[in-house]
């Protein structure tokens, strides 16, 4: 425990009041489902860039990046940075999505209109499994981290962070999510810079290098097979996650015309150095003589050791912002997906915009309650479930990319690509390991999708993506 529980509770209260207050204030302008889910489709470049950065900075980025560095060395930090390519490569796609589907709401709309209802069903099953797992893992991480950092009881910490995010997302919709994301991204970036330079005041990079060369030379090795494989796995996992998830598609729809491509490019460039800036701190642990009883707490332990209470408070704020910026986005995007793809498309096609907005708010609340119920028992193995979703996520990359750019891409390719890629990727997960599952799932899906498109004579009419929404 790095902070006194009282200090932790005070910080938690200050930021909770801030986020909920801003969410309620910004949410006043929302009248319809389009306002609530897509912020009126008018987000500018600054907020657009910052929201993509903040959402992609999860508690994993600030906590797992140091662990990656501690276990996989320099390549570990670089491997984690590869996730930025998800944002960078999505940039041109986001512009195309906005052009092809000016009235679209979700990534589910794309699958339904491009590949038909069966492929849409598989996509919904895969993406909801992944999104709900990610949501539960983030809420659980919130409880565990607040407990480890400040001694706040797990259930209370998890309940407060989840409750706060549900409240402001429910009331303010995407506007509240994007507004708070901007503040959170700045707090995280500035916090990481201050903490990083403060650590370097106590130990030089040369001292870190000398210590590593003597005690853990493997962490400086250029040819480190496990780390090199992790690079590809992280890259593909990042691509699959960003390409398919409604968290990112809803932003592509919400950004003002001409903004989406630029915003995702800027976001990728801003995100790229964060795992290195946050991760190198772990490499300093040996030179600083900090004992590491548990590798997943290496970052906070080193910072608290060097900077004392001020450092511990900085870590607490950075972690809280990282968690909130991801949980709110997941709540908003998943509730929009269920509202649009399940409630509206399957159950109530004639629902009015005001009704859809209310339904989205209720679904946000239900998602929060469901997540809370799953998190209370504190299952400790959820990170492996998230890795388990890797091949499912990877198998959706090629149906999406070809579906956006190639007229000959077809339903047989998309359905087979997702089922074969996901299935064989899962076999690889159990037979070989998590570090190759996404790569194999993606490769199998790619071969099938490309072969089907190559052999097909169909020519998809892009105008159909504008219709029926």
């Amino acid at each position, binding site marked *: 425990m790095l902070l006194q529980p009282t200090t932790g509770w005070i910080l938690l209260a200050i930021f909770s009041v801030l986020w909920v207050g801003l969410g309620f204030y910004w949410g006043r302008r929302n009248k319809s489902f389009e306002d609530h889910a897509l*912020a*009126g489709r*008018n*987000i*500018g*470049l*600054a*907020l657009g*860039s*910052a929201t993509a*950065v903040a959402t992609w900075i999860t508690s994993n980025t600030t906590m797992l990046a140091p662990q990656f560095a501690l276990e996989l060395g*320099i390549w570990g*930090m670089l491997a984690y940075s590869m996730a930025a390519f998800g944002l960078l490569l999505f940039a041109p796609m986001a512009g195309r999505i906005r052009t092809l589907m000016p009235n679209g709401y979700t990534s589910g709309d794309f699958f339904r209109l491009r590949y038909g209802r069966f492929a849409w069903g598989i996509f919904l099953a895969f993406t909801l499994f992944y999104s709900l797992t990610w949501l539960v893992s983030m809420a659980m991480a919130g409880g565990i981290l607040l407990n480890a950092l400040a001694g706040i009881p797990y259930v209370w910490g998890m309940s407060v962070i989840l409750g706060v995010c549900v409240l402001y997302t429910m009331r303010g919709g995407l*506007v509240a999510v*994007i507004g708070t994301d*901007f503040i959170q*991204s*700045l707090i995280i*970036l*500035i916090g*990481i*810079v201050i903490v*990083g*330079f403060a650590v*370097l005041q106590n130990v030089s*990079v*040369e001292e*870190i*290098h*000398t210590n590593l*060369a003597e005690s853990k*030379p493997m962490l*400086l*090795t*250029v040819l480190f097979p496990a780390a090199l494989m992790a690079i590809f796995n992280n890259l593909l996992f990042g691509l699959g996650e960003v390409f398919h998830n409604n968290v990112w598609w809803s932003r592509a729809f919400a950004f*003002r015309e001409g903004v989406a491509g630029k915003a995702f490019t*800027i976001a990728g*460039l*801003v995100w*790229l*150095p*964060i795992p*290195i*800036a946050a991760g*190198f701190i772990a*490499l300093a642990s040996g030179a600083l003589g900090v004992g590491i009883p548990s590798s997943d707490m290496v970052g906070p332990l080193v910072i608290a050791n060097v900077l004392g209470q001020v450092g511990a408070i900085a870590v607490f704020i950075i972690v809280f912002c990282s968690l909130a910026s991801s949980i709110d986005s997941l709540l908003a995007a998943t509730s929009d997906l269920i509202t649009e793809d399940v409630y509206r498309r399957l159950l109530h096609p004639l629902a009015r915009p005001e009704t859809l907005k209310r339904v989205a708010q209720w679904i946000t609340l239900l998602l929060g309650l469901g997540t809370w119920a799953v998190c209370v028992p504190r299952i400790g193995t959820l990170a492996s479930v998230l890795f388990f979703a890797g091949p499912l996520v990877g198998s959706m990359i090629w149906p999406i990319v070809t579906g956006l750019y190639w007229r000959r891409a077809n339903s047989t390719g998309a359905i087979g690509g997702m089922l074969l890629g996901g299935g064989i990727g899962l076999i690889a997960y159990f037979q070989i390991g998590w570090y190759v599952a996404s790569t194999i799932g993606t490769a199998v899906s790619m071969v099938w999708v490309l072969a089907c498109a190559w052999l097909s004579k169909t020519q998809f009419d892009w105008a159909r993506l504008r219709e029926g929404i």
Partner: protein
Amino acid sequence: MFSSGFLTVLVYGALVWCAISSVALLAMLVRDLLQGRTW
């Protein structure tokens, strides 16, 4: 083996990059606010 110089460039480069990014995001927000194009 990665050299000390490489690690120095990597670490300082990442920290300076983050600092510049935060200033750039703020500057972009101010510009959007002045042009009335925030959201």
